[in-house]
């Protein structure tokens, strides 16, 4: 399995990083070597390298992205609507492959292995990456069946394993107490916030390494949002979390690192503290202080 590949040598990493394509005049440049100063970082869990993405032959949405997303931290993607946050996120588990006519250049590596490796099954990739969508999308099944869906499709049948997974995942999603007595009710009987937490439970049921969240709280009320933020905080101990958010406060609250995108380019990527308090780019400063976006 690619995920368990040995850690790449630091020197090799540096080399890759230096091979940043010649920036166009006026283009905001991002140097990944400087971007991850934390020496305790064991590996660049997700590495986006010279990544360009096109929805069709002409419409380029992502431009020459380079970034390393550290493991077991929360990385927030911020930026104005349409800047490509979701597109990048959905490339990490290759959900964009489903769209006809898409094309990409460059690579995304997880643990040093390309996700576009032709020998890699997309399905096994997705099994290692949980995803939570903007609009909660519980399946028309019971709460129980929702949580263990990924195990079901993997063909796992052992009752005790399934039961354990349901409890662990629902506890992990801070939903266990609320639903433990009605696991076999329809998922549609839950409230909006509960549904989204159910989707989180479903996403972590298969013990993925990475959890992708695309504006998971945008449709929720403040109380439900609070719960999910708390949850993200707890989950980061075990998962590498990438969260797209529109909400600046939320990014500031939950994330360790923040990436600011603008028009398909990565403008600034640094410790959240730094991005919000002392951004090095004037555009970032304008955006986080609410002057545009």
């Amino acid at each position, binding site marked *: 399995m690619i995920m368990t590949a040995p850690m790449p040598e630091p020197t090799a990493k540096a080399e890759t990083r230096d091979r940043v394509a010649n920036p166009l005049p006026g283009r905001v440049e991002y140097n990944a070597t400087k971007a991850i100063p934390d020496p305790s970082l064991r590996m660049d869990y997700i590495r986006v390298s010279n990544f360009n993405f096109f929805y069709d032959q002409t419409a380029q949405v992502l431009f020459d992205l380079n970034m390393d997303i550290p493991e077991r931290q929360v990385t927030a993607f911020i930026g104005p609507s349409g800047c490509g946050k979701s597109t990048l996120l959905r490339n990490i*588990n290759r*959900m964009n492959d*489903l769209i006809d006519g898409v094309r990409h250049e460059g690579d995304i590596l997880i643990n040093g292995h390309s996700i576009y490796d032709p020998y890699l099954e997309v*399905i*096994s990739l*997705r*099994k290692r*990456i*949980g*995803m939570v*969508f903007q*609009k909660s*999308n*519980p*399946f*028309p*099944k019971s709460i129980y069946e929702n949580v263990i*869906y*990924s195990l*079901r*499709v*993997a063909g796992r049948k052992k009752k005790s394993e399934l039961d354990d997974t349901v409890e662990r995942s629902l506890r992990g999603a801070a939903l266990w107490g609320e639903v433990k007595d009605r696991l076999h009710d*329809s998922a*549609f009987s839950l409230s909006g916030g509960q549904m989204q937490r159910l*989707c989180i439970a*479903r*996403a972590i049921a*298969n013990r993925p390494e990475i959890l992708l969240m695309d504006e998971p709280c945008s449709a929720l009320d403040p109380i439900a949002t609070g719960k999910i933020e708390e949850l993200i905080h707890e989950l980061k101990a075990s998962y590498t979390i990438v969260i797209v958010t529109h909400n600046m406060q939320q990014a500031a609250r939950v994330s360790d690192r923040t990436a600011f995108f603008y028009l398909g380019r990565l403008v600034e990527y640094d410790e959240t503290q730094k991005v919000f308090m002392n951004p090095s780019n004037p555009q970032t400063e304008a955006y986080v202080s609410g002057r545009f976006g």
Partner: protein
Amino acid sequence: MFASSQKDRPPGEMFVWFTSMGLAVGLLMIVGLLGFIVWNGVAVFWPKPVAEIRLKDGAPLFRGSASVMGVITKQQPIDVRNLTPEQLAHPDPLVRMEKQLFVGNRNTYGASYVYFNAGDIDSVQYPEGVLNIERMEWGNALVYPIALELKDGTRIEASDPAFPGRFSEIMVEVNKRRAAITKIEKGRIGKINHRMRNLQLDERYLERNKTLSPAQQADLEETRERIRQLQAAYEPLAAEALKMRERQNDHHLLFRLATGEERRQAMGDFVHHFWPNQMNTLHKIGQFLHHAKEFLVAYPREANTEGGIFPSLFGTVVMTLLMSLAVTPFGVLAAIYLREYAKQGPFVRAVRIAVNNLAGVPSIVFGIFGLGFFVYFMGGNIDRIFFPRNVELGVPTFGTGGVLWASLTLALMTVPVVIVSTEEALAAVSRGVRQGALACGASKWQTIQTLVLPASAPGILTGLILAMARGAGEVAPLILVGVVALAPSLPVDSIFPFIHLERKFMHLGFHIYDLGFQSPDSEAAMPMVFATTLVLILLVVVLNLGAILIRNHLKRKYMASAF
């Protein structure tokens, strides 16, 4: 308010009226048609009083009698071409009317219905003592009973207060015995016949050879021996049935017709009786229910014009269910491929248009296709491979019309409906759910199987409902691929292998056609036509309601999945 000028009115308001009028006309037509069928169909079973009509002096007599008895079924103007100048000039319009009278007693009178000039009728009475008897043959008899002649020689006069009770008792007895006879003949003798037919075919097949090898000779001997054994088993049964049949003639009824003839008939010929002029509403309702039930569960008699429609009802249900079984997987798989897997483009669009147009092909074309492809090609090949003996003897098994080929033909005819509604249902399953499943590591097929299909089930059922409604009422193609006016046996019975897909079957739609247009006395068949039509419509409604109930159940189950 009328003062406001024309030009203040929003333009096109007039058309709202047109649209509502269109709806109103449509509704009126549907309600009118249904009402007409329901009224006439239900009226068939309602017991009507029997009138004794006295004709005026000088009016033409009916079989030499001025008195005639029957149910007045309708009154209508006489065709102008048949009117005499005196009648035309007569001040009383009644003279130009005629009454239709159901006189029954077809064996004596020759016809069930007789017309009288309304002007010739002197008086109409409803005598209490009339008995309406439904018989195995010759339709109903409307009679004045005279006496019961029992086997032991006793005679019970109709005036005897014990007469009605005794009569009813004997009726129960003969009906029970008739059921027992049927059980022997259809059941045990039927089974023997089935085996016998097979053995006789074997025998004929072997006899065709000019010279027989010793093995064949032995075969032939054995077959003949088994035929003899069957014959031996058959004889006591036949004798038993015959004995019971004879006992049906133990008791006789002596009766008189209104026209004066006296007749004597075995009680075993009678099926049911009632006293039409002595009934209160409760009796009438009881009689109505009895009649309606018999209509549904009894076998037809006298070339379908009497008795029930059970085989047709059963055949229609079996065929419709088989059709649903065939059309659902076929249509759903096609729709899944078209919607989920095929690359959307001009080719898929063309296929879709072709499928939609298939729904508009006249049904008889499907019948012809079914005959050519299913019956001759598929059936013929099945026969050649599995029943070479029957082919050799010119007795096709699958190579002739049958309930299987009829169902498949109708399945082919209705598959576009299922494809279209399944495609719509598949398209309605939200992207969120699909992506959620894929993100969980499900393959596309797993996503379809575990989420998309269950969520589309209500839509698929809608398609099936439409298909069934169309299939159950279709007649034209069936005539070519397996429907008959009178089938000797049901497609499902107690003889192994219980479901006989190759058998010809009866169908309500064809039954209606046969009664209305192929029976010798279409006037007499009219009530049966209405009643059968009503049953066919009710059957379609019941099948649809069943499917709708299942659909609603599924909808509740997958409630919020539609958005």
